[in-house]
Structure formats: C-alpha cells, structure tokens
C-alpha cells in the first residue's frame, strides 16, 4: 500500500502553525510512518514542487513570488488545507490592508519602497487559489490538526466546528468572564477549536480562532459598548488577528474611525 504524500508549505507567517506538527512529540514519528512527507523545510525535507496528495499551507500571501508559488502548490497538490489564521484569513499581518496603511507604512519604513516586493495586501490563500479545507486558529490547535489529518487518511472530510466558543467554555466549566467579571470576551462571536483557553485562564477571548457561524457582531458590538469600550477599542476587538475574516471586517469598520486613534 502506498502511503499518502503530504507537504507543508510556508508563506508569510510566524512558523507557529507548523509547530503543530513539530510539537506533536511521539505523534510526529507516528505520522511520519503513516504518510510520506515530501516537503517540509523546517523538518528538513525540501522538494517544493513535489506532487502530493495533501498540502498544508501556513501563512498569508503577500508578495508576487508567493502568489506564483501558491499557484504551483495548487497545481501540485490533490488537496490544499490552510493551516491557521494567516493562511485562512490573512492573519495579523493583514492589518496592513486597512485603509491603505500598507503604502503609508512602506513610505515611512523603507528608504526605497519601490523595491519592496510586497503586494499591497496580505491575503488569505483562498484569495488566490481554491482551498479544500481550512483550519483556523492563531495558532491552530495541534490536536485539531492531527484529527483533520486522521479524517483525511480515512478518506473523509474533517469536522469543521464553527460553533461559538461559549459552547466549549461551558463544557469546560469555565466561569464566564464577561458575566462574572465584565471582561470584553469575544467568545460569543468566535469559533471553537482552542478549548476555551482564555476564559479558563480568567481572561477574555481575543478571537484568535476567527468568526463563528452566524456570529451576531452587531449585538456583540453593542455589548462591548455597554461594557464601556470606546468605539476604537471595539473596532480593534474585531480587527486583530482575523481582521479580514468576513463578519469581523465589516463589524470592525462600523466602529473604526481612523488610525485607531482614541476618541
């Protein structure tokens, strides 16, 4: 029996999501026996253009070279799975897309901005190619990644939990930090996946897993307002790690004035 082939590709990112594999401990060795890893630079395997069954892609697309490379990944891969917030929704670096700040920053930062080969926007992978499955989170949850790999090995689509974090928060018996402590928790609009880490640690969720299905961002914004957050702060609650995820972008823009100034 031939083992399925996989590749892990890196684009603009912090490397944290790839660690879901490298941090897997014994599971990493087990995985290496179940699949044939053809390309994974950080693990020492380099064959960028290898044809594979499943390609995992970390990072957002933010240079012309990356646009070209992600197209090659698509062409060489049976399935493309995005790994984490950057690949799935643009990630933190997509903050530069807001209000054309990219150009302003380029001017401010680089002596010769015309040579900086970055695109105006840092974009999710799906803005450039078809994506078969998306794993959210900044970083992804390692257990979720391996579970997805397992389902793919079974020949079945992985589960895609899109429920609000509150469901999981309650299953974990965390005390609600919004109700019991007045914190601006984003759990009610954020998808599950992390295991409700922040509320379990007594703090508010900052939405690193992106928007949940049917997220009522208007009601959420109103609640944050009720907790005393100024509009710019409400905007920043939405415009953080998943600023370009549908739902969050519009919600953030509604409260967003300019340049996040305090008002």
């Amino acid at each position, binding site marked *: 029996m031939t083992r399925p082939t996989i590749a892990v590709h*890196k684009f*603009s*990112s*912090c*490397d*944290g*999501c790839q*660690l*879901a594999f*490298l*941090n897997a*401990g*014994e599971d990493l*060795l087990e995985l*290496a026996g179940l699949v044939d*890893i053809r390309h994974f*630079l*950080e*693990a*020492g*395997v*380099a064959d*960028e253009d290898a044809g594979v069954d499943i390609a995992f892609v970390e990072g957002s697309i933010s240079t012309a*070279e*990356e646009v070209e490379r992600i197209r090659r990944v698509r062409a060489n891969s049976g399935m493309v799975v995005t790994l984490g917030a950057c690949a799935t929704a643009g*990630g*933190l*670096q997509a*903050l*530069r897309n807001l209000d054309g700040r990219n150009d302003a*920053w380029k001017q*401010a*930062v*680089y*002596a*010769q901005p015309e*040579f*900086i080969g*970055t695109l105006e926007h*840092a974009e999710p992978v799906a803005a450039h190619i078809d994506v078969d499955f998306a794993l959210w989170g*900044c*970083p992804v*949850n390692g257990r979720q990644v391996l579970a997805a790999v397992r389902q793919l090995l079974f020949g079945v689509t992985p589960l895609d939990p899109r429920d609000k974090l509150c469901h999981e928060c309650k299953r974990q018996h965390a005390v609600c930090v919004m109700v019991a402590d007045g914190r601006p928790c984003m759990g009610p609009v954020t998808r599950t996946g*992390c295991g409700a*880490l*922040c509320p*379990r*640690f*007594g*703090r508010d969720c*900052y939405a690193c897993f992106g928007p949940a299905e049917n997220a009522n961002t208007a009601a959420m914004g109103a609640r944050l307002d009720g907790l005393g957050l100024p509009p*710019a*702060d409400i905007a*920043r609650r939405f415009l*953080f*790690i998943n600023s370009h995820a549908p739902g969050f972008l519009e919600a953030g823009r509604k409260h967003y004035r300019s*340049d*996040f*100034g*305090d008002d």
Partner: protein
Amino acid sequence: MTERKVSIHVPALTRVEGEGSLRLRIEHGEIEELALTIFEPPRYFEKFLEGRRHHEVIDTVARICGICPIAYQMSAAQALENAFGMTPSDWVRDMRRVFYCGEWLQSHALHVHLLAAPDFLGFDSVVGMAEKYPDEVRRGLRLQGLGNRLIGLLGARSVHPVGARVGGFHRAPSLAEVDAMLDKLRGALPDAESLIAWAASLPMPDDPQDFVSVALRHPTDYPMTEGRIVADNGLDIDVADYESRFVEEHRAQSTALFSLLDGQPYLVGPLPRLNLNLDRLPASSRALLDATGVRFPSDNMFHSLLARTIEIHVALVEAIRLLEDYRVPDSPYAEPTVMAGSGCGATEAPRGLLWHRYVVDAAGIVRGARIVPPTSQNQARIEVDLRRSLLAFGLDHADDALRLRAETVIRNYDPCISCATHFLRLDVERR
C-alpha cells in the same frame, strides 16, 4: 590549486525557522559572493502596535515568532512595566522565569534534535535520524514536549500562550498542577543529563574563531529574564542604554539588516550566554559541563549545540527550584498605573538577546515601538562565520559538501527568520 568555478545556491534553507536562502559564488578559489537572504516578507509589527493599548501588546508581539513567543511577551511586559515605573512582585518574576524555562526547553530541544543533530550525524532530517537513533530522538521529543507543557502551566498553550499580561499572569496555577509538573520535571533530569554527554560526544568540527560574545548578566542567576547587557570586550551597560552602543546598519547586496556593537559584528545566543555566565550556572549543571571535558569559555561556534543542552539542564533545575517554593498568590498580577513614558526590556530568548522599547501616552496607548530580535543581531556574525568557515573547511570540497557545511554553519545559529522580518528600517538596493 582550485581553478574551478562554483556557484551554489541553496534556494530554501531547511531546518531553520522561517525561510531564508544562501547564495555563494566561488571563483578561482575565492569567495566572490556570499549572501544569506531572508525572503520572509516584512510583517510591520511595530506599526501594528501603534495606536493599540498597552495590554494588547503582549498578544500582538507573540505573533512575531511562533518558536519563541514567550521571549517576545516577556521583553514586552518588562519594557511596558518599565515605562509605567512598576516592578513586578517576586512571585511574578519567579513565574516568568519558570515560563521562560519552558521556552528554552522547548526551543532548545527542538533545535538540537530536529534541526541541528541530523547535520552532525549525517541525516537529512529527523525522520531519517529516528530510524537509527530512536532513543535519542524520543528523548528529544520528550524534553520538547515537557517544555511545551511547562509553558502551558502558565500560558495555556505553548505557541502564542495566553497567560501572560503586563503586571504578571492572568491566572496562577493550582498547587496540584504545580506538584504534577514538578514530578515531570524531576523525572526529566536523567534525560537532560544523558543529553549533555551525548551532545559532547557528537562529532563536531574543531573550528576556533574570534567573536565578541554578548549576553545578559544577572547578579546571582543564570541570565534569562533580567540583567545588564555585557560582552567579553568589557561592555557592561543598562538595558536602557542598548541603543547607545548597538546600531543597526544596512549593507549593500543584502536585504537584511545587520546589528553591530561599536561597529563590529557580535554574537548572541546560548554560546555567548554560557561563555559569559559560567559562574552563574547551577552547581549541578556546572558539574555536568565540567564532566564533558569541553573547555568553556569556548571559541568553537559548534559548541553552541552543547551550550543548548547545558541550558536545557539549567531550565529544568531552575524550574524545579522555583516551583518547589511555589505558593498560590493573592493575585497573579498587579494592575499597572498607566502613565506616559518610555521603557525598555531585554530578555534572553533561546536564540539570544531580545530587546524592546515602547513609548506610551498617558492613556496607555502605544505611540512607538522598536524590537531588535536575536537573529538580526547575529546576521553580520553569520556572514563572517560562513566566509571563514568555508575557507577553513576548504573550498575545493565537492559542491554538496560545501553546501552542507554552509547550511550546518547557518543552522548552528538557529536563526529565526520570522523574527527577523519585522525589520522596519530596511534599505534595499538591487543591481
């Protein structure tokens, strides 16, 4: 002798965090071109911070690097507390050290086993190495996993942990959790001990060279989260004075930025840390080091790997020491009194000194930020080392051997390219 013309291009370096490439051109036995290129696109972190409230910084800077988020969080917390004129409680300082021990364990174990050791044992990757050295690889994965769990104790998860905040931690672990962790840490000591002996026995090139070691130095402890910045050239300054001696410079033909100390390349990371702080090692770590027979301070860059294994032991010993005295505090943090100001922070990331400065306004909103990661500090040094290491190795070696040697040299620095690519003042010249 050599009349051949060699051009080696390693388009994508493997087993380094992030992506970089190396261009090497040798003509008539001379290195005509040697450039380590970082092609990770810039990620503008300092700009993202402007306009955000101080308490958002910790979660933001973690995202600069998935391998050493705690270093970013701890340097930032320190800098902001500094700006607010607050000193964290002893409990907080102890727990930060424990937190940091987790990162050293995790990052060093990852680097030693998954990234560097295959070089010295002649494997392409850890997967191949695991077949021949299953016990060693499993030992590494155990230590790495333990580091992750130790981070989780205070941070909930090991990549971009959520537990840290300005003023302390969001949550204090329970006694039961700490006890369970202590058991695991104690149980890992034999692994760390045998790891040091194993690392000392690895076939290492003997390659002495001149370099300036820079690290933090603490009055009593092995440096991690606090200290003055010192160097073996006599430098001894306060963290706040960093910018007066360290300058980032741009050089032609490279897209990366070089940090220089008084105009010269220098080295940060485990080897300089150890070289400068031998007298701060816990006694048991010191004894293990002495038993290797390797003389420190060492001027062999390849002893970085051995230094990492010593630091894995230090991390275990220190975490055990601090957690043995653990008590649950009344509050795991102190709320900062926000005021306008500016503050610096520096900690010893696994890869070396990580320096931050923030300017905040009276509302606690960040107005300016500067972050100097270890990889940019080592940049100049890596190129110097590459040039002379390859010459010492002998340019008439076959291409593959040259390439492997070059990669080995680079990987030995454990460069973290994601960290390095938030550079802000970057002048680019192309020909």
